[in-house]
């Protein structure tokens, strides 16, 4: 028992009664990670393997007149070349936006769009072959911003858009919001902009495909969503899903950037089918920037009515998202920019209008926080301004308007456990907020912000009644247990969660549990590592499977020992009478007894989220089995000469429901703070739009991200307010703690130097511009100054729960 010390030799600081849950254990894959033994996708190699390279568009928006691959095909070592017509069936992550082709068919939509694929005996040969492919383009007008797309409905980037170049238009109203806002003693209106940024996982995407002459395809790929890659391959390659095996290799970082099915995955599969040889692709760092699917650049307008005491009477929120060239998760992202405003503070009436534009930039999608960091930034800075006008401390203002636990919001989101009040109290105390706010010398300030995030989406991407997560469990007569689950390890600890939960229920050592994940041939479906769904959903599925196994074993052990089953305890690798510890047997013996009586011992578990309360169109985005909460105080030093903002310390309290492994929870919190700090201060997808819409900085050196020298100190408080829907009460932690960082830093900058940078990232240039304006007696602000006019559709009107609504929309005639 090499790892035994990590189970029992440490202080039992877990929640009472639990042996494993809550403790800071090693992750089950930790040793493989620190010895370099973990096999990432690019670490795989097979005999006779070919290398694939993709030719990518050099035009931002153009018709493809012709592609000549003759010379490339003749190059010695080239085994196959593909172009668009070889794979004519479209795909995409959402059923409503199947708008991507493996290789562009008629036109290209951004610089970096894949146009042709080559498989050759070496990577160098494949690269040389790309240079021999001749593409003739007929350039079309291209658009580098959402506003440009609003202004120019033609030429359309996609002909299926809701209107012109507006991919999606949403208009949802819950109660008479104008009347609600008018009830306020103060009505405030603000504009914000959140620049796009990218995930920047250290591992570049890679995939290896293998085709067997018996008609079976295997794909190893660094994906967060093997289930959806499985679907896309079956569709585009026109193969039965049962003949395709997708294995998600451990991801070297994901953060949402590996959640879509990608062209390169389908291309290597097709090339393997054609050549009959294994085919591998590893993207360059530049190509990872083109795959993108990161944060949508988002312009936001918000108008809120508040009473003198700070209570909100109504809120109207508008967002305009720059979606880039394809749909990706964009429809969901757009809804998310309006969904979660209501789960932190009580908003009795709420109106949301959201639009997503197509532009000729790398496609945007889900990055950590998916569509909610932008509105959270806007909302939390907006509230800071309201607090100042009302002369209420920003922490007090928030505490007065908290959503109560176990309540239904105006937009029909069901809030369960709600620990935000405790979170605010912790960071206010820990940061000495009351001694610092408005009291630090010029150049130094503190800012506060809060947030909430979903623990998985209540509805699946493909609407159906099947579980979102499944687990199979096999008990070996030697005492070993194997857990099979489709979940994908991206560094967040999803493999470990399965082992800890099963170990807790069966009373065995988690390091004696074999975990088999993310393999569509071997593991039951889990929808993927996105939307912070994994701990709650796979955890519940694992819990059910383990409890069923425990029931079977209990039955036979109870009979043998003549002890009532409810008196049996599973702990320390034994099953015993809780009233007489000596009366018992080893776990392995228990399995043997059961196996002799019943045959092979295996169980299954699955998890389906509770039904959503909202029944209106658009109600699918926002519901979750449980919401996490975070509060954050950031301290900022602002250099008045250079505008450089440094953040020495961030205090964060996170309501995780209950930690399954507290060290992993803290790791997720610290990682979220880090990523949020990068977004707050420096990270941005910057494009040159003058001649061609081209990414300015597709490299790790010039895409600025925090190093050890920029990272702040983090003081973490874990708030444990168990949620009945979570396994052992657990809620999410992987994304929520990122959300309050950007607004907390912006609010701290204001406290430090009295200027508002209503735009992320808060670069020195923007701070200086705002300072100069303030010096000139103008408003000390940097940020957007207008929201463009958009032809919104008629609103979907949904009476709120307090108005007696039932979650359904009413037709205009009835109003």
């Amino acid at each position, binding site marked *: 028992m090499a790892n035994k010390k990590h189970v029992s030799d440490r202080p039992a600081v877990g929640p009472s009664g639990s042996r494993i849950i809550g403790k800071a254990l090693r992750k089950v894959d930790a040793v493989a*990670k620190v010895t370099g033994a973990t096999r990432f996708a690019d*670490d795989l190699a097979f005999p006779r393997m070919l290398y694939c390279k993709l030719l990518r568009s050099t035009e931002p928006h153009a018709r493809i007149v012709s592609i000549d691959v003759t010379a490339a095909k003749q190059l010695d070592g080239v085994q196959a070349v593909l172009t668009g017509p070889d794979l004519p069936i479209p795909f995409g992550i959402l059923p409503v936006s199947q708008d991507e082709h493996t290789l562009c068919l008629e036109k290209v939509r951004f610089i970096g769009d894949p146009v042709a694929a080559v498989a050759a005996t070496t990577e160098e040969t494949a690269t040389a072959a790309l240079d021999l492919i001749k593409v003739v383009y007929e350039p079309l007008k291209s658009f580098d911003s959402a506003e440009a797309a609003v202004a120019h409905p033609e030429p359309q980037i996609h002909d299926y858009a809701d209107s012109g170049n507006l991919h999606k238009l949403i208009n949802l109203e819950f109660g008479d919001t104008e009347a609600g806002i008018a009830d306020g003693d103060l009505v405030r209106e603000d504009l914000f902009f959140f620049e796009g940024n990218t995930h920047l996982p250290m591992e570049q995407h890679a995939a290896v495909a293998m085709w067997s002459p018996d008609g079976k395809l295997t794909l190893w790929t660094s994906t967060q969503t093997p289930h959806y890659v499985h679907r896309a391959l079956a569709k585009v390659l026109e193969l039965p899903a049962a003949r395709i095996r997708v294995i998600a290799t451990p991801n070297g970082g994901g953060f949402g950037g590996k959640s879509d099915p990608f062209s390169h995955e389908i291309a290597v599969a097709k090339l393997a089918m054609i050549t009959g040889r294994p085919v591998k692709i590893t993207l360059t760092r530049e190509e990872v920037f083109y795959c993108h699917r990161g944060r949508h650049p988002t312009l936001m307008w918000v108008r809120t009515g508040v009473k003198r005491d700070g209570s909100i009477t109504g809120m109207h929120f508008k967002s305009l998202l720059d979606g880039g060239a394809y749909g990706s998760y964009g429809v969901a992202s757009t809804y998310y920019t309006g969904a979660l405003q209501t789960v932190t503070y009580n908003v009795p009436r709420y109106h949301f209008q959201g639009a997503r534009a197509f532009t000729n930039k790398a496609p945007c999608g889900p990055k950590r926080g998916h569509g909610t960091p932008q509105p959270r930034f806007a909302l939390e800075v907006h509230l800071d301004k309201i607090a100042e006008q009302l002369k209420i401390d920003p922490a007090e203002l928030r505490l007065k308007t908290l959503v109560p636990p176990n309540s239904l919001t105006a937009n029909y989101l069901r809030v369960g456990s709600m620990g935000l009040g405790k979170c605010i109290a912790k960071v206010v105390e820990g940061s000495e907020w009351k001694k610092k706010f408005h009291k630090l010398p010029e150049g130094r300030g503190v800012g506060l912000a809060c947030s909430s995030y979903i623990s998985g989406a209540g509805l699946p991407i493909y609407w159906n009644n099947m579980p979102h997560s499944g687990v199979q469990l096999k008990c070996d007569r030697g005492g070993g247990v194997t857990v099979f689950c489709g979940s994908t390890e991206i560094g967040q600890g999803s493999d470990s969660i399965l082992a800890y939960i099963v170990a807790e229920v069966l009373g065995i050592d988690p390091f004696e549990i074999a975990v088999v994940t993310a393999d569509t041939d071997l593991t039951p479906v889990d929808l993927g590592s996105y939307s912070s769904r994994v701990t709650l959903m796979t955890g519940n599925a694992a819990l059910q499977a383990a409890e069923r196994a425990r029931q079977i074993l209990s039955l036979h052990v109870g009979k043998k020992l003549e002890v009532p089953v409810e008196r049996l305890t599973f702990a320390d690798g034994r099953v015993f009478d809780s009233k007489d510890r000596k009366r018992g047997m080893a776990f392995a013996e228990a399995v043997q007894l059961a196996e002799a009586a019943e045959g092979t011992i295996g169980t299954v578990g699955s998890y389906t989220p509770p039904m959503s309360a909202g029944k209106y169109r658009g109600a699918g985005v926002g519901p979750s089995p449980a919401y996490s909460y975070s509060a954050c105080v950031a301290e900022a030093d602002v250099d008045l000469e250079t505008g450089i903002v440094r953040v020495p310390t961030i205090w964060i309290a996170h309501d995780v429901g209950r930690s399954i492994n507290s060290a992993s929870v803290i790791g997720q919190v610290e990682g979220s703070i880090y990523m949020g700090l990068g977004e707050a201060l420096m990270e941005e997808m910057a494009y040159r739009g003058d001649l061609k819409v081209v990414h300015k900085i597709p490299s*790790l050196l010039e895409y600025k991200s925090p190093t*050890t020298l920029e990272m702040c100190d983090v003081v973490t408080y874990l708030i444990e307010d168990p949620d009945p829907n979570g396994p052992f009460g657990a809620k999410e932690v992987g994304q929520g703690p990122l959300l309050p960082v950007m607004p907390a830093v912006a609010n701290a900058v204001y406290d430090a130097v009295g200027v508002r940078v209503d735009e992320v990232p808060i670069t020195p240039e923007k701070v200086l511009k705002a300072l100069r304006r303030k010096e000139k007696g103008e408003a000390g602000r940097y940020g957007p100054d207008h929201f463009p006019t958009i032809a919104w559709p008629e609103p979907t009107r949904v009476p709120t729960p307090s108005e007696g609504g039932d979650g359904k929309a009413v037709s205009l005639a009835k109003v």
Partner: protein
Amino acid sequence: MGNESKVKIALTVNGEAAEVAFAPHKTLLEVLREDMGLTGTKHGCELGECGTCTVLLDGTPVLSCLVLGLACAGHAVRTVEAMAQGGKLHPLQETFADLGAAQCGYCTPAFLLAAEALLVANPKPTRDEIKDALAGNLCRCTGYIKIYQAVELAAARMRGEKAEPAREWLYGQ
């Protein structure tokens, strides 16, 4: 085109004499991963920007994506594969595993080697010295904090002190 004739060099890899033949344009990173099967060394950019490919060359951290394989003839290369000895983890590997300093694990081999070189040169580094030594390595998962703590804890143990992680590192304040 990959058909160019290979060159052969002799060098020391992880303490053992080795000979390896490879195409002359290959970087040390490629030689290690592709010609010697040492895939524990990772890559993040192949342009010297991220530090993910860090290995020790004669004890000094280098970016193996910027070093030609040919330049390593007669030199000693150390990779993550050599850190655990006799089935036992290196103290840095122990603390990285215990504290969760490895999340996705992709940048981890590089951090381990950069930290090892630091501790050889400076057995009792301050937090700022650790930050300086690791400033060339990017990690997108951890926010670096668990890495600093793991280096400090391992350093203390390597100095022979009986050190345990602080409770708040693992359980919060």
